[in-house]
């Protein structure tokens, strides 16, 4: 089997040498053995850490601007979330946006990092960060409230630019 000019060619009948099997085994062996001397991909974590590119989908965060979240608690992220990880409770604010999330919780045990919430957000208020080191010692601890989600916009400038460019 192989690809040729984008056309799939299926070999139904094996040649005599392929049927003999042993030469193919040695071909395979030479491939695997040659891999042994190639450069390795392993990161020596914790000393050496992965620096994600801006396209990386780490844990979702809420963007904070001028001391308040951009979020207007429309609940679209909550609706679109395939794992039902997000819970939003809206309330009224005196600010021009009228509506804000009085409670915004992401159950990080449920979150699957798909980024749908970021994609659906009409306010660019929930975005995926670069943070991938998530450790909890209880179910309760895995529920992230506003205090852990809010991140100043300056800290996530890179991702915001990436989102704008990839639109």
């Amino acid at each position: 089997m192989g690809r040729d000019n984008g056309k799939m060619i299926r070999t139904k009948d094996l040649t005599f040498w392929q049927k003999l099997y042993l030469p193919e085994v040695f071909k395979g062996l030479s491939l695997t053995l040659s891999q042994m001397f190639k450069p390795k991909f392993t990161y020596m974590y914790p000393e050496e850490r992965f620096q994600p590119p801006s396209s990386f989908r780490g844990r979702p965060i809420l963007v904070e601007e001028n001391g308040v979240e951009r979020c207007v608690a429309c609940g679209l992220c909550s609706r679109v979330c395939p794992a039902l990880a997000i819970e939003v409770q809206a309330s009224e604010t005196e600010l021009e946006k009228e509506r804000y999330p009085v409670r915004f919780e992401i159950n990080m045990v449920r979150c699957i990092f798909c980024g749908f919430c970021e994609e659906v957000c009409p306010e660019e208020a929930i975005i995926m960060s670069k943070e991938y080191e998530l450790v909890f010692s209880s179910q309760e601890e895995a529920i992230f409230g506003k205090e852990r989600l809010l991140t100043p916009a300056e800290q996530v400038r890179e991702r915001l630019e990436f989102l704008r460019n990839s639109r």
Partner: protein
Amino acid sequence: MATITINGTEFQVDAKSTIIEAARANGIHIPHFCWHPKLSVSGNCRMCLVEVEQMPKLLIACATQVADGMVVKTKSERVIQAQKAVMEFLLINHPLDCPICDEAGECKLQEYAYQYSVGYSRFEEDKVHKPKRVPLGPNVMLDVERCIMCSRCIRFSEEIAKQPVLTFTQRGTHVVLTTFPGSELDNPYSMNVIELCPVGALTSRDFRFKARVWEMAATESVCNGCARGCNMNIWTRNNEILRLTPRQNEEVNSSWMCDYGRLETFKHVNASERLSGPSVRVDRELRSIGWEETVSELASELRGFRKNEIAGIGSAYATNEDNFVFQRFIKEVLGSKHLDLLPHVIEQVEDDLLIKADRTPNSLGARNVGIEPSSGGLSASGIRNAINDGSIRALYVLEDDIAADPEWHSVLQKLRLLVVHSAVQNATTALAHVVLPASTYAEKHGTITNFQGRVQRLQPAVATSETDRRMDGLAASRWDKFSSKNDRWGRPVKFDARPSWRILVSVAAALGTRMKYNTAEDVFGEIANVVPVYRGMSFARIGSKGVLSKSSPVPVKT
């Protein structure tokens, strides 16, 4: 009758009807904003434009009467172009703040934007800015920017609620909906404009930003605010009632519901003064103990009285099932003749539209199933006097705050035993010796009978500690369906309360009488057997719109 052709199909229609009515009667939807079957025709939104053969221009279906031989096209190229143009005009100044707007999810403009609009905007200029967050009255909030000037609310206030306080001022794109100076939208039916409004211009102040509509589950039920029994939907999220909206039933409430019914009849279900778990008075203090202990204690207390020392007060707030089991309990189990209920009538509030003077939902039903003194028994005032002179020493009260009445309050203290079924803490539970927490109308199955004699179904919308939303078949939202104990929304507040009929069955069992009821439907099955006016009825036959009982005291308006 007239014969008209719509989209190539011939229909026999009422010669006096308009095109939109004729189409609707035959299941053809013509998009519309300003037209409403219960209101006068205004013809200002232009959304219902249709093509009529031999007419040079498109006609609005809501204001054109049918004629014999008329040929109508609702989906022709011209009509579709016109619909797109109308949608484009309407959306030019609409703020498109759906993420903030409470109407999102049940918005006619949103739906039509999907179905009849081009899907993008060519408008690059600044939108017109108008007042936002304007309270029109105590219950309704106005956002003028979202308004599409259909005038449904104006016509409703004039024609149905008879309070003509709304009007448009200014012209063109600057039109503003407002109340006349010095007046506000405060009629008893003001909140109906919220459902009438096809966009989010008029929203509920009570429900404002509480939840998105798709997060809630709706349960068909009946309002308990007065003897009308308006059909309604109970909207719950996370086991909490957030709003009540009218459900159409032409025999009872048309499409309307009063503000009192919408706002005042559900707050107690999730209130902090809800009773959870039974309690017994020990040394002047109410102590919470388990159901079994309470029931056995109550049974042994009740054994200590002679038959004519006990009396029962039924309830026009409770269901037919509760009252039926209650009268059996008082008359057969306790052997008392003294049984009655207290009426709650406020003559001044009654009007011609919906609101009834009888503030209880089931006074007729309670009487029908036998809440009345046996021959030789005492009526309510007689019971009160008998308590006062000491000949009645034990009183069993079903779901009614009788101590709210000062005359009763003063005599109740003389009782040796006061047993109360109640959903919330109130003046009567404060005096009671045994308090049994009863489920509210939103937590149980049952039937109530309105002033017309129409028997209507109540269905549980809120789970109690012994019911499970999914297992017991309550309406469930996506979040209800997929919750687990690890989620905050999987751990709703549940109260430890039971339907009164079930509490009574267990007390009767402790007193040695077995009543074979397992479900409210079992009780109603027996009611349908033994109460003549309900003969032959069943939960299935009552359905979602109710059934008129055999001897209805009031002729039904149609």
